[in-house]
């Protein structure tokens, strides 16, 4: 350290190294509106492409399709999270190569043609529908200026892919033997506002009711069985209140659901229901029901 010049260079080198590895950070209070946010680099950012990129492919052309997130400032971003540089005079057309009225903007589907020589997009075909892929992600990944990973986000719960197709769902319920034989059983759901008479079921025999309904796959709802009011809603096997049942419509042609109702909420103490029809010495008018008018 007897050479002050070497000491100064050593200190400058250490600072540069620290800045380069992100060991030194700007204080967050230094951020101002519209000021680029400092960041630590966790991976090597691909170098910017040459400004001499040309729409005339200088190498092989590969085509990759996806849905656009944004198109700004010479970059195209796909919903995968990958961003690519687009050549300033890139051709924008439709999937057949003809002129298009679509604008490259969020939610539009696009097929990008990459010049493998400089990695820029030289043609962007737009569509309102998904376009078939002609290249694998690995082939164009090296051109990305912002990369994504194929690893799923751990914060996103795994979800089954639902196509939204129509699915015939048949609900069959076994009811308690003492269910009045002229009563109707309904399916009440949260998607119908918990109306107690939302979906009327057919009685198929003394102990079973059935209904077939069409739902879109991916539909998820809560439901309970009633006899037309919430005073007569189903109860559990122990006669107590039960939480609603849950149902998820999956991607299939049909689904069958078999349930059992053990009790109804308005079950009385098994006292005989005489319908006010038995006259007694204390009730000389035998029927409380007035005659029809």
């Amino acid at each position, binding site marked *: 350290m007897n050479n002050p010049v070497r000491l100064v260079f050593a200190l400058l080198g250490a600072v540069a190294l620290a800045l380069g590895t992100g060991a030194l950070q700007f204080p967050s209070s230094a951020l101002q509106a519209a000021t680029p946010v400092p960041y630590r680099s966790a991976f090597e950012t691909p170098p910017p492409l040459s400004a001499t990129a040309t729409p005339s492919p200088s190498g092989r052309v590969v085509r990759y399709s996806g849905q656009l*997130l944004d198109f700004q400032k010479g970059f195209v971003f796909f919903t995968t999270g990958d961003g690519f540089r687009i050549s300033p005079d890139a051709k924008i057309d439709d999937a057949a190569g003809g002129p298009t009225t679509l604008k490259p903007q969020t939610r539009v589907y696009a097929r990008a043609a990459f010049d493998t020589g400089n990695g820029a997009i030289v043609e962007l075909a737009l569509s309102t529908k998904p376009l078939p892929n002609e290249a694998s992600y690995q082939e164009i990944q090296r051109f990305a200026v912002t990369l994504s990973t194929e690893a799923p986000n751990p914060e996103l719960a795994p979800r089954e892919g639902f196509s939204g197709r129509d699915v015939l769902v048949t609900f069959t319920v076994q009811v308690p033997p003492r269910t009045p034989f002229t009563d109707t059983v309904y399916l009440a759901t*949260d998607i119908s506002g918990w109306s107690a008479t939302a979906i009327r079921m057919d009685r198929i025999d003394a102990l079973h009711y059935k209904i077939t309904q069409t739902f879109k796959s991916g539909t998820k709802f809560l439901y309970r069985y009633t006899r037309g009011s919430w005073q007569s809603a189903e109860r559990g096997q122990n006669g107590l209140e039960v939480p609603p049942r849950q149902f998820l419509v999956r991607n299939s042609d049909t689904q069958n659901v078999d349930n059992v109702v053990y009790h109804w909420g308005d079950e009385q103490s098994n006292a005989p229901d005489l319908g006010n029809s038995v006259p007694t010495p204390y009730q000389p008018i035998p029927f409380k029901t007035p005659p029809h008018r």
Partner: protein
Amino acid sequence: MPLALAAAARCAAAPALPARVDIRAASVALYPFTAGTTLIDARGGVEVRAGGRTLVADQVRYDLMTNRLVASGHVRLTFAGERASLEGAACALDLARGTTVYERLDPLPAVLRFAGDDPGSAVEAPASAGVFALADLRAAGYYVRGRHARIAPNANVRFTPAIFPTGAFPPVQAPTYLYTFARTNFSQNALPAASFDQPYPLFGTENSLASGHLRYDPVNAASLAFDERLVQGNTAYASAAWIPLRGQQADLDAFSQLRRGLTQTFAGYYLYGPLHETYGAYALQWTSPSTRTIFNASQADASNHASLTVSSIDHYVRPLATYRLQLTYAYDHEPATLPFDNVFSLAASGYAATRSLRLPLGVTSSLRYDFSLQEFDFPHQLASDTWTLSLSKAANRDLSFYGTAAIEQVADRYRDDAAKYLDLPDPSLPYFAPDGTPFPGIFAYAGSSTLRTYFLQSTWRPHQGENSVQLFLTATRDFPQFHGYGRDPLFATLDVTQRLGSTLRVDLARSYGFGWNRQYLSQWSLSLSP
């Protein structure tokens, strides 16, 4: 201890969901049950306010189930106090975890991630798959749309205005609509039964819901009702309802689970219209693996009732039958009634029923027997037993029949010397029915009666679809049948169900009751469902 400290630190660091999230755009539409979740799709000059953040973008997707939003197209994210602002191509904001991932543009494109409201801690990292994914909504129909959606996370979203699609017809517009997506058990309400009840949610939180109801029932015709529901998980609820105009009444239902197997319920109503009545009932139920014990107390105006019931559970005797037995001790107090104000009684009852049995010719059958015997503390005994036979048959894939025959025998007997103790009327002096004809009363048949009911239901459901035509016929043959009083000898209902669109199904029914002396009634009933 370190684990506990770490957990506490995580809890302390867990961000709180904003109390509300406001989305304003040219169009804000709700897509329930799309891609396995419920989405809000906003497009056209979108502005989102969530806590201290303001987000502007061309398009925003908000997942109501996970509280994640993806903004894309000319995104600008501003934090409270304008102390920092980010601009980029896209932004994925996880409000539940407080994390933000955004595609920056300047000075070079990059994907950055940070937690909370501190973009200064942003780290560049590749975007995980699916972070910016946009579900394909082209084939999905929106349920309601507006220009402003106010989201109460995990509870509901209010659209203003609310525009509902009607398929081929012009859309219907309402000033506002509250869509509830909380997975809360809001099912129970205190309103009495109606043949049509269309709820319209007004206000709500994750655990409460206030709704208006458009109702129709044959007695009060069309009416309005309001109800408020408070729910605590699956262990307690309270529901209050009010019918202010026709059929004026107020209802209250409440339930709570005191401990495993022990529950209490309260149900009451107050009629304050032309009919004036107050009713309240409290029940305490304890359930063990083999029995149910229920204490019941109720009051209807000046009358009181209390009972203690012990019931077996339903026992299944393989392979054929199910049975249940029950014992009830009851007290009734009815002032100024004959023969006594205070009556105690003991009742034994039960049933046995077969399973559904397959018979030849594709017929399914079952048989049920009910009995009840009630002994009062004065010379009075009431017994009944009922046999019910059911048969059903599917004629073909589209047409099916279900029929039932039920015969109920009732013995309402007073002890031979009851007249001496009870000061009964002289049996040689008949009563007179309201139409002036002599009414022989109980003495003519020693309290025995027979009630016969025959019921037939036929259902035609083409191709097992959602449209159907049903005919219900009920015939009664009772003994004794007094001068036209009693059940209608014949009751018929024709019911037609038709799906009119993907969101509307109509159920229209016409009923006729053919009574005695050429008297008959008729009524319509209407039901709409999604």
